[in-house]
């Protein structure tokens, strides 16, 4: 029998003291396994990360890097879209190539709510999430009948339809002339507008990632994974396909809606051209590069594909080619994405020197 190394109990001998804090690998109760963060070392790391992120809007301008705040806002929005998309594609196995449509709906919904109805920003953002989720539910309905490439084409069509409606329904969206979004008073005193927006965007990204982590580990996440692996088997074991497939679309769309609201506030001028099919592909590329079916993978992919175009803008017209090459290479050599590679590296060092 094993003797688990619990805190407070002295280790019997030097040989039993591990070098790294990987002692708590033996789990005795199911609830212990469910903890998102395990052990004091992990808690310290999470706390440091959260404090670091919260301090970012204050720290960057002090360090003379205030220009990075806008990129932090864009990165937060992309992280939210990618994590939401990963719940749909990576967990539920439902491929969407129309996510720019949901982002556009969120952006225009928040813009219109703020501009026409003059609602305060939290209401505008929640409204954006709710309206986007409602559209996600509608798109989820055909997903009950369609699978594989047929569903992909349906979502593709949805994305293009949203673009066309926003272009041509001038009374609603302002058409190609654009829609001006009023600056939302975020109500945080003593900070510049971009600091406030960065703080709110980062907070939203952290909160939504936390929700995604928990969704993924709950019965919802398991139901989605079951549908992905075999929807007949899932239905036989009592997973309601109708409910979970539409739920996956609605949640994913709600995430995209919040991201859209952030983008609307960052740009303050919306134009349908910013939400084309190409954006949908970029979102899809984020989760493929980062790692399908993991929340962390979505975060990594979104951060990378936000920062790469910015720092590689010097290579100009070669950028799309570099982009495509990276994605093909990832598919060939790292089908589990960067997060999968990281897990394997970690496993290797855990087992070292074996």
């Amino acid at each position, binding site marked *: 029998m094993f003797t688990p190394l619990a805190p407070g109990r002295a280790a019997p001998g030097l040989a039993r003291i591990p070098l790294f804090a990987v002692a708590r690998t033996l789990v005795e109760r199911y609830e212990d396994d469910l903890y998102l963060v395990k052990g004091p070392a992990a808690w310290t790391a999470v706390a440091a990360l959260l404090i670091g992120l919260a301090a970012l809007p204050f720290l960057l301008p002090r360090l003379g*890097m205030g220009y990075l705040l*806008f990129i932090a806002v864009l990165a937060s929005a992309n992280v939210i879209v990618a994590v939401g998309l990963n719940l749909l594609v990576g967990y539920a196995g439902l491929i969407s190539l129309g996510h720019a449509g949901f982002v556009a709906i969120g952006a225009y919904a928040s813009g219109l709510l703020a501009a026409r109805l003059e609602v305060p920003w939290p209401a505008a953002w929640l409204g954006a999430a709710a309206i986007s989720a409602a559209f996600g539910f509608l798109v989820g309905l055909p997903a009950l009948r369609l699978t594989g490439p047929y569903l992909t084409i349906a979502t593709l069509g949805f994305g293009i339809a949203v673009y066309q409606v926003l272009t041509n329904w001038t009374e609603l969206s302002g058409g*190609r*002339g*654009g829609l001006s979004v009023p600056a939302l008073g975020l109500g945080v005193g003593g900070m510049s507008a971009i600091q406030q927006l960065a703080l709110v965007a980062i907070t939203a990204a952290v909160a939504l990632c936390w929700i995604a982590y928990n969704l993924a580990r709950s019965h919802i996440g398991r139901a989605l994974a079951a549908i992905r692996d075999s929807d007949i088997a899932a239905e036989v074991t009592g997973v309601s396909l109708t409910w979970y497939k539409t739920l996956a679309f609605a949640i994913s769309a709600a995430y995209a809606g919040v991201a859209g609201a952030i983008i609307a506030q960052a*740009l303050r001028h919306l*134009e349908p051209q910013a939400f084309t099919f190409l954006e949908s592909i970029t979102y899809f590329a984020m989760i493929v590069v980062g790692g399908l079916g993991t929340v962390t993978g979505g975060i990594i992919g979104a951060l990378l594909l936000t920062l790469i175009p910015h720092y590689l803008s010097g290579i100009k017209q070669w950028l799309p080619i570099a982009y495509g090459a990276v994605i093909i290479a990832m598919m060939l050599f790292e089908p589990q994405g960067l997060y999968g590679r990281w897990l394997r590296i970690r496993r290797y060092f855990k087992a070292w020197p074996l």
Partner: protein
Amino acid sequence: MRTVARIALAAVVVAALGAAAQGQPAERGVSATEIVVGTTMPLSGPAAFWGVPISGAMEAWFRHLNDQGGINGRRLRLVAKDDGYLPPRAVANTRELVERDGVFALVSSLGTANVFAARDYVIESQTIWITPLGGTDIWAGFRQRKYLFVTYPSYIEEGIYLTTYAAANLRARNIAVFYQNDLYGQQGLLGVKRGVDRARGTRLVAQVSYEVTDAEVSAQAQKMRESGADTVILYATPRHGALIVREMARLGFRPTLLSSFTLADPAMFALAGEAWNNVYLTAYFPLPGTGDARVDATLATLSRINPALARNPFNAIAGVGFVEPFLEGLRRAGRDLTKDRLVSAMETLRNWDGEVMRGVTFGPDRRQGTNRIFMIKSEAGRYTKLTDWYTYPTRF
């Protein structure tokens, strides 16, 4: 007591270091030897055929000036960033240009959506902004424009001029507009509508739009033929302009053609062929190859420094035109350069002629540096000047 003395000493040292680090209280982007200017342009993506020659020409022109010793002993340096014609990247670039690269002034920025997205930030950061390329009419009624200087024509005024000219000189009665569905095309359409209201006997029989992503425009050509128009006015990209005139010629529909100055690129002759004959266009500077020695010399200089620019003469020359008044402002502001001295110097420009831009005027209440255009006509692969300057009222 000793502690107090030590603290006092430390404070003095810190203050001295701080003062030393600051050196002379210089203006951002201006050193003893250099002036840094920034721009964000589509150097890749769907609008690269504008962004690449314009920024290339500005860079070549800076090098030409630097070879002659710069301006007031300072060399000019252009920091050009690629935004791929995407507003988020344009804003990120703009912020980085101001806050990291520390530019003295921003030049241009291309695309209405990009200009709108960057506008609040540029205005709030009180950065000098030279000719943002996104429809000048958005600035009318805009108050905080102390550091803004625009030398680009108004599409609305141009549309009025094209229509009234066609009515008075080309016997235009039934007018159709072919326009791009965005702010550029919509402003042109608005101008034509106002022109139709002014010119007696004319009416607008069709307004036909296309999307910038459209690959072909035969339905639009058909629609305009069926409208019975005798005159067609174009607000399009060179590619779509060429497509529509060729398609109309194929249908045997040959109305009087007029077009915005955006299609004055000589590349149109290659794109549209014979169909680009007898087209009436406006221009806001003398076009290369139309007998203006200074413009031709400018193009020769640019082509010598960067041979690729010779393939895009219109956009290259326009690129010089965008920065020219600013460079004159720098000359007039003198060696002791600050932001506000530049503004005062710019405001002294009265009917100033540069190598490309002519008759540029700014003033304490005037930021619209140019308000005149003239008519040209395409004949046998080249443009000829038809009229003298037409001047329209300034609005900002």
